[in-house]
């Protein structure tokens, strides 16, 4: 039986070391493919529309005038099939719950849970 994979995953994060860390953590599960990265909302919307990922990991504090929370519905509109994980150092649980485009919130202080949460959201946690 062919192994299930989560093909597309876009990381929207403007801190380069943070993007490297996320890539390295997710690389532990070879079924996860990171197919794009962006540092601002405009690039994220373009990449999401072009790549149609299964999941977008989205930081709130990103470059440009549009922050992550405001970009979420725009990304969802560009890639309706993608789930959005808001991954931020701000405590934005309430804001994430109030935004229908965001499927889950994870605090950066909880980085140990990043891989299992991603696996669950893309359906790889069996």
């Amino acid at each position, binding site marked *: 039986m062919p192994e299930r994979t989560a093909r597309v995953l876009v990381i929207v994060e*403007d801190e380069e070391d*943070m993007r490297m860390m996320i890539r390295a953590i997710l690389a*532990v599960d070879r079924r996860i493919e990171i197919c794009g990265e962006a540092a601002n909302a405009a690039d994220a919307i373009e990449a999401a529309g072009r790549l149609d990922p299964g999941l977008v990991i989205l930081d709130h504090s990103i470059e440009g005038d549009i922050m992550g929370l405001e970009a979420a519905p725009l990304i969802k509109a560009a890639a309706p099939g993608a789930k959005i994980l808001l991954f931020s*150092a701000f405590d934005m649980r309430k804001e994430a719950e109030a935004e229908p485009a965001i499927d889950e919130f994870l605090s950066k202080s909880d980085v140990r849970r990043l891989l299992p949460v991603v696996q669950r959201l893309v359906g790889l946690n069996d």
Partner: protein
Amino acid sequence: MGRAAEIVEWLQLVGWTSLAIAALNLWRRRRTGPSTWLALTFGALAVVVIGGRLLPDVAAEPTFPLRVLLAVLVLFPYLLYRFVASMVERSRWEWVLAHVLTAAAVVDVSAVPAFPEAGEPRSVAFVVFLVVFLVQWTFLLSRAAWQLWRAGSAQPAVARKRMRLMSVAASMLALTLVLSATGPSSGTSSADLAVDIIGLLVAPLFFIAFHPPRTLRLVWRQREEADLRATEIGLVRAVSRTEVAAAWLPRVSDLVGGRGAIVFDMDRSVLALHNISPAEVAHMSAGLEDGMPRYTAVEVGSHRVVAMHNGWLVVGIGPLTPFFGDDELRTVGASSVVADLALGRARLFELERQARAAMGDFVAIASHDLRTPVTVISGFTELMRSQWDAHDDAEKQDFLDAIARQVHHLDRLIGDLLTVTKLDVSEIDVFPRAVDVERTAREVAAELEIDADIRTEALTSGVRVFADPDHVARMLRNYLSNAVTYGGPPIVVDISGRNGSVVVCVRDTGPGVPEEFRSRLFEKFARADKKKSRSVGGTGLGLSIVRGLAERNRGDAWYEPERPTGSRFCFRLPVASSTDEA
């Protein structure tokens, strides 16, 4: 009866003369249009009453002095009409008619025939004289009485009662004249006495209307005073300056019968409006001047301005207020003391709320900026612990380099956070001494390996500021490194003297700071270009620290856009005296 009439006449003499003296005193204190006309009005009547006592009984043929007295008597209602007209609008036809009737009456006086003896029938000429006289008096007095009564309805209690008393007095005066003129020519002494007594009451009525005793004013103003006190008590509970101003304005405006009122903040922005159109605001703010006496209603055109410590009250007053509402204007001045205290208290509440909000924002951003490097360090550390064999040496080296970068950034951030916190609570130590700012600028530029052109202007080389040398170096370090990171060459450091201070400006020819960001430049965590800031490990606290250090060293820091393009970041420090040690 004759004795009673004599007493009444003397009382009238005293009454009208006192009234004339009081009106004259008012005119001497306050030389306005209404007070001038009022002084002339009662002065004329006093002249008539005194002259009437001095002249012998009316002879068959009126003498010249008697004609003069009659002419003054004719002028009395005209002067009272002019007093009212100086405050209340009148129609053109009425104005013309008033002058025509008065002129006719004066001419009539010059041709007045012999006065009939008691019991003697009145001649046609005398009747004509009486009719002209009566028409002129009753028209002018009744118009004055009507306008006073009607205008009083829109006034606050004291002004309204004063105006209506004056209206009643004018009406009674007209009545006494009509009764005197139309009574039987034989005239019974009792009828004359009755008219004299009515006339006697007029003088005190005018007096009370013109100068009511304080006790009476307080009684009249009881309800308005109670409303004002209740409002002032409510001001104590207000937690914002707009709330204070909005609650207070209608009361003070109503108290003086004003058209409307505004409370301006200390920076001349509007805190609250009451019945004032936005178009009038600029006009009303033009009269505000620093140094105005506080808690006193100062006349500025058709407004009264009350200066307070925490702003200004401007009341647009009507034409009647300066004469009838002077006591109320003093009450407004007293009330402004309470309002000023409430405004000051509300300002403190606002500052406290702003400080709490700013602290909340600061804590949120600081938490975020601290958590980010910790997350990276934690993530990579845990990754290497659990997946050591899964990564090759090159990858592990990348992870360790990232950890090292984030540790360094965290170290700088913690240091800057501690510095800004100490600055906020004024706990940063300052060790001022004479500092050669030109030499310091050269040393910092060399340390950062920046090619900066350092120029001094209007100063001899080696000029010194009196400040902490570490702080001066830090300020220069921040400005110069910002010029390299965000600006563009050439980078110039201008050092000049200005009003007992040394001003240091670092300018570049880069893109400059966007206008919408300039007001926030020196705030904590303000970053116009986040990407560039991150690329050089910026914490977003540098400029906030520069301003804090400048202020702790009795100076200041600011930004100016450079023309045609670029930035100019400046700070000012006090000049060191010749006795200050280096």
